[in-house]
């Protein structure tokens, strides 16, 4: 397990998971963004529902957009959110 990292959830991902923020340690097996989403999905039914279409989930590492095959690295903050609808 790595260092504890803050995870933020937004929009309907936050609603489905039932919380906006948590601090957890990720298993060493989580090396890429895709690994993170796959691992998250298995945590419980709420996560499974929130992340049921992983392709559309956006993941930011330290407030920077990523692609799903990017390495996770050692961020202080991870955010999961759906496609953006601002403007």
């Amino acid at each position, binding site marked *: 397990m790595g260092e504890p990292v803050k995870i933020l959830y937004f*929009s309907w991902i936050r609603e489905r998971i039932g919380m906006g923020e948590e601090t957890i340690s990720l298993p060493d097996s989580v090396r890429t963004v895709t690994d993170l989403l796959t691992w998250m999905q298995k945590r419980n039914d709420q996560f499974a529902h929130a992340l049921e279409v992983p392709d559309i989930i956006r993941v930011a590492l330290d407030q920077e957009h990523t692609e799903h095959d990017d390495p996770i690295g050692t961020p202080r903050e991870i955010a999961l959110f759906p*496609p*953006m*609808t*601002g*403007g």
Partner: protein
Amino acid sequence: MSATPNIRVQPEDFNQTIEIEKLTKGRADIGAVTTFIGLCRSEGESLNALELEHYPGMAEAEVTKSAQEACERWPIDGLTVIHRYGVIKPGEQIVLVIATSRHRDAAFDGARYVMDFLKTNAPFWKKEHRIDGKTGEWVDAKESDVDAKARWAKS
């Protein structure tokens, strides 16, 4: 870079006249001011309000990034972007972009570039509150917004 953008993410409404004046007052070298205002639309009278959620910190950072890119790409003299969050009623203002330049092409391109990138890259999400009191839906992202961003790809 031709200008340092002014970026604000705030719940308060804004006044475009005041913001334009900040960019133009006391200088006579600006020939063109392009302003974009995004308003909250009612959807067939069924919408009571939009609730705008944002990712504090990253929202400002992403808007700043697209604004800086615009200032690098075109000879822009001033660029202001204000994006609101919180509950916004139909007819109210959501977003303001002002780009000033000596010439109109840079002002038009700069303002539109910022809007196109803001739409797909800035972490804001809209939820509908309906007049009938039902918990509304989260607004779906539009494929056309991804297409809009693609038009700025450099060949």
